[in-house]
């Protein structure tokens, strides 16, 4: 794993990316188990039940993304600040603590699964709160690691050159780490419980993570196509204003039905309806800067078309960045907007519709750009000047994007059945729920979701192969 050409911060980044990728595989595997259980309910019944598979599916998702986000920051920090990351030894030590803690949590999820209804379960087995199920002891571990990471970032940012990208990341990552604290308490009042639970989930996924993506996209545009820093950073500040301006109060769309007052209908509807706007802006920004830089290249001292070179220094990474711009807008923006108004959400809340949105949004907004960062790391680690696509890179991105889109469409159709049958017609009772699940369109939707899940997994295998082997491939310019 050690590479003499990388500085320590970038080396740590590759460690983070490696473990993130392993967890990404785990996420897909447990997702497949859960998808099979929808089609064949007896599969692993009372061995590895749906609740266990899904816990692992969504926890692996969150954790691999956090790992890849940390990795991305450790990767770009020396480039942006111009100095070695301060306190990198501590960062490396914390990495191993983080990995060990996650291994223990996962083993307990798989082999212990549930516990008695008392505090020991909350502390040592699981907290039973979707996305942040990790037991309390692990919460403290996560806080310690996150503080170490934030310290690395802040000390380096203050000592080195503090670019706009680094400034945004500093503000964003401290909020990201701090918000986790809102999920670390127990209450008997489930409305209060879910109120604060959303502070973690929503303010991560629809605010701080999105701003993180804006910063990474800015870094990618500068390093991959040589976009002008001043232009890129101006866009970044506009995006921060729009993302936080809509996303923070957009949290209201989670407060429609959990016992909270009616005024959240209006606040949630208004601000969450604005949430797609920055995503459109980010999409335009990436394509605009690409076109602008490529156009400048074409106008410069070329006499014939053939001598015009692509400005892209890393083709597979840039492909993933473009899919990020598109997927973020489509998955988070369009699929999110579908059901964000309270009049619609009353019927769609808690159906496969949410699941369709969740799949495309997490993939489009985050998985894509983080995979892109992994390609950037492969490029840097292997001293590649211009990195080209291989057959595997193209097949991997096609299968994964096609697979996730397919799952999203299948889940959306299944969601419609649920909305019409279980909700509108039957009023969300036990009987209504199962009538909806028995619908032909629902059942076929679940079949297609499984098929598309397998397609996604095949793409993942190719992606793994490509990331491991493309560094030595002679197609690249060195």
């Amino acid at each position, binding site marked *: 794993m050690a590479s003499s050409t990388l500085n320590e911060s970038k080396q740590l980044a590759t460690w983070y990316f490696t473990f993130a990728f392993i967890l990404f595989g785990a996420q897909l595997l447990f997702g497949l188990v859960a998808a099979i*259980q929808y089609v064949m*309910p*007896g599969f692993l019944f009372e061995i590895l*039940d749906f*609740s266990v598979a*899904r*816990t692992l599916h969504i926890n692996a998702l969150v954790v691999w993304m956090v790992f890849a986000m940390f990795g991305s920051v450790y990767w770009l920090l020396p480039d942006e600040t111009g100095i070695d990351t301060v306190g990198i030894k501590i960062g490396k030590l914390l990495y191993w603590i983080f990995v060990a803690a996650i291994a223990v949590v996962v083993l307990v999820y798989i082999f212990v*699964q*549930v516990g*008695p*209804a*008392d505090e020991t*379960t909350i502390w040592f087995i*699981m907290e*039973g*709160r*979707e996305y942040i*199920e990790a037991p309390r002891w692990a919460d403290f571990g996560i806080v310690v690691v996150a503080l170490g990471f934030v310290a690395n970032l802040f000390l380096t940012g203050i000592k080195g050159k503090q670019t*706009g990208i680094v400034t945004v990341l500093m503000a964003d990552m401290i909020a990201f780490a701090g918000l986790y604290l809102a999920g670390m308490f*127990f*209450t*008997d*009042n*489930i*409305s*209060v*419980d*879910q109120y604060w*639970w959303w502070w973690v989930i929503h303010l991560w996924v629809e605010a701080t993570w999105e701003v993180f993506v804006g910063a990474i996209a800015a870094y990618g545009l500068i390093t991959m196509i040589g976009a002008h820093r001043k232009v890129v950073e*101006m866009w970044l*500040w506009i995006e*921060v*204003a729009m993302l*936080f*301006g809509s996303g*923070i*109060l957009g*949290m209201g769309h989670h407060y*429609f*039905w*959990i*016992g*909270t*007052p009616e*005024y*959240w*209908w209006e606040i949630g509807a208004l601000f969450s309806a604005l949430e797609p706007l920055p995503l459109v802006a980010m999409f335009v920004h990436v394509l605009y800067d690409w076109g602008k830089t490529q156009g400048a290249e074409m106008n410069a001292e070329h006499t014939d078309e053939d001598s015009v070179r692509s400005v892209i220094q890393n083709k597979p990474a840039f492909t993933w960045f473009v899919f990020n711009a598109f997927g973020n807008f489509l998955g988070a923006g369009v699929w999110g907007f579908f059901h964000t108004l309270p009049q619609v959400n*009353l019927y769609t*809340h*808690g*159906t496969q519709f949410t699941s369709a949105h969740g799949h495309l949004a997490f993939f489009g907004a985050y998985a894509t750009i983080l995979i892109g960062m992994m390609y950037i790391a492969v490029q840097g680690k292997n001293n590649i000047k211009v990195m080209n696509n291989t057959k595997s890179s193209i097949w991997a991105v096609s299968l994964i994007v096609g697979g996730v889109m397919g799952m999203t469409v299948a889940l959306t159709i299944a969601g419609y059945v649920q909305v019409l049958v279980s*909700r509108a*017609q039957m*009023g*969300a*009772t*036990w*009987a209504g*729920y*199962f009538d909806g699940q028995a619908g032909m369109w629902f059942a076929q939707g679940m079949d297609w979701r499984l098929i598309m899940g397998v397609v996604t997994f095949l793409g993942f295998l190719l992606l793994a192969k490509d990331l491991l082997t493309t560094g030595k491939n002679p197609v690249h310019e060195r």
Partner: protein
Amino acid sequence: MANRSVWSDNRFWQRSAAWVTGFAAILLIWLTFDTSMQISMGSDEDLKNGVTKRVPGPTVINYKITYEMDAKRGHEVPVIGEKELFFGRDDWSEEEAGALLHLGKLGSQAKNCMNCHTLLGNGAYYAPDLTKAWLDPAWGPEGSLQAMTGKPTKEEAMAEFLQHPSQYPTHERMMPNLGITAEEAKGLVAFLKHMSSIDTNGFPRNFGKIKGAVHGK
């Protein structure tokens, strides 16, 4: 410098971002204070005096709960009615009911309910929503689920099912055995009854149209 526009000035956008974020955050914090007061749990006194709380106190388990159309608000709201026996008693004290709810809420997390079911609509979509499960006609006196367990009351039927779910398969998709004890099951049913009394702004919609849940008759 003369032709430089503020619209292409990074400092301007940086400051705008800071102001917008700060303003949104302050508004959220302010609303959080108001919401926290509105969703704090009520007390036994409130219930006795007929004070409506969005989240009633734990002793709501001593009362009959129904889900009725409110003409003014335009959707169904939980209505707390006359006294009703819960596991044979309608005089659960604030401490006893609170302890039962505490056990049930802990149980709901310790057994990871939320990764199959939705609670207040949040969670996984592999099993029915539990928000108003207590009011589900299937668990009522004429309901198939109560009949299946052979228990005389709704709460005993639910507790029996929770302890031995795979003995009562209702569909091909079954609830697994989670090692829920008799005491934990009692707590979980109290938790479900309490949750059904939370004012969820009419979610889930149309629940009241189903026979048996309207006016609790």
